[in-house]
């Protein structure tokens, strides 16, 4: 059973539907207690980093997620959910994250050349390393991005996308994984990544 963390930010309709379409049974988790009952966790998110972390803390999910991650349960952070896996973010001040992935989240404006639009919105090619999440991918496959911040100073990058500079597109450290793009909005390629996550060990 897969659990989608529901902490009141963003719209989980597409994520639920996309998981259902690949035959993955998912339940919504809005409390620390619920987290123990699932064997795989998806941490979604849109909006601002500070608000989202605050909401996770208020529901007790912040510590529960760290506990489950330490126990080896597979976790996939998506978009802001991936960013929250990092140690800290510089979005509107400095905010601490879950610290499950080494590195920090900074504005893409610091690395992309002038003239590139912000946010980085649209389909971009994944430049990926071999990883179980990408077992169904082929070179040149594209996924859908919407973001203005990116993960950096990170030794766990497994994929980047070129937007005038290589931007972190996915990270993984053992059972903790994250993607900056939206697999639930990336057509068959995205669904294959979700499927691969459902098939990772644990």
């Amino acid at each position, binding site marked *: 059973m897969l659990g989608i963390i529901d902490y009141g930010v963003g719209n989980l309709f*597409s994520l639920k539907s996309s998981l259902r379409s690949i035959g993955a049974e998912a339940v919504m988790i809005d409390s620390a207690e619920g987290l123990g009952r699932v064997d795989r966790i998806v941490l979604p998110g849109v909006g601002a980093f500070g608000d989202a972390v605050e909401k996770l803390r208020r529901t007790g999910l912040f510590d529960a997620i760290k506990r489950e991650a330490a126990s080896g349960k597979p976790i996939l952070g998506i978009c802001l959910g991936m960013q929250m896996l990092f140690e800290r973010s510089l979005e509107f001040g400095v905010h601490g994250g879950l610290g499950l992935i080494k590195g920090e989240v900074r504005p893409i404006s610091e690395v992309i050349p002038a003239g590139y639009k912000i*946010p980085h919105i649209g389909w971009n090619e994944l430049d990926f390393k071999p990883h179980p999440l990408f077992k169904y991918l082929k070179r040149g496959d594209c996924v859908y991005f919407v973001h203005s911040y990116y993960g950096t100073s990170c030794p766990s990058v497994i994929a980047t996308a070129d937007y005038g500079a290589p931007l972190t597109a996915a990270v993984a450290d053992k059972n903790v994984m994250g993607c900056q793009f939206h697999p639930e909005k*990336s057509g068959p390629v995205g669904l294959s990544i979700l499927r691969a996550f459902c098939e990772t060990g644990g």
Partner: protein
Amino acid sequence: MLKKRIIPCLDVRDGKVTKGIKFKGNADIADPVELAGFYSDNGADELVFYDITASAEGRAIFTDVLKRVAETVFIPLTVGGGIRTLDDFDRVLKCGADKVSVNSGAIADKTLIRKAAERYGSQCVVISADVKRQDGGFRVYGRGGRDDTGIDAKEWIKYCVGEGAGEVVLNSIDTDGVKGGFDIEMLNEVCGSLSVPVIASGGAGSVDDFIRLFREVPCADAGLAASVFHYKEIAIPDLKRALFESGIPMRI
């Protein structure tokens, strides 16, 4: 490298897809859920749905259609038509829309974009404008292209982006439905220096029109069309292949 996007637009009335010529004389042509699946399977990078019903009953049918699309199609969905309040944003976002496009609603309530961007984030808020040549300039038209608002298009778009709109759809009334090509002049004039993505709409009639769009309008991130796709005059896979071979970055 970021790809240019090809976006079919589905005007939905009473649960069916329609396409008007110059906003008049709509004819029903297909089931939107079926058509959305077809486009998604055939390389569409995103879908735009416009609710062109006015009645509450039509609106309920539309949200049901949207929900069914979002359950089966996993590419970005933008929804527009009749969006006037934050409740309207809420209604379509809950049914699986990723972005909400406002047009007349933003003209009627100049604070709508800011309020929506604050609540849902800029990535969610699309300003769509119907633009027409008037007295030597470009004007914004309201109510589905029927009323001259007297507002200068360039000023309006700048204002909306400043308020938090994260993407811009520019539809040329002068070229819409004519199939003689996108309105290159208007697009460059109105959104040449914008910092957010621009979706060009109105006038696509051939593959060459799309090639010209992306070559001659550097600010265009996407090309949107309806009837040429609905009537199968252009097949999206062929279009994207031709664009790719012309050196335009495409998701193939």
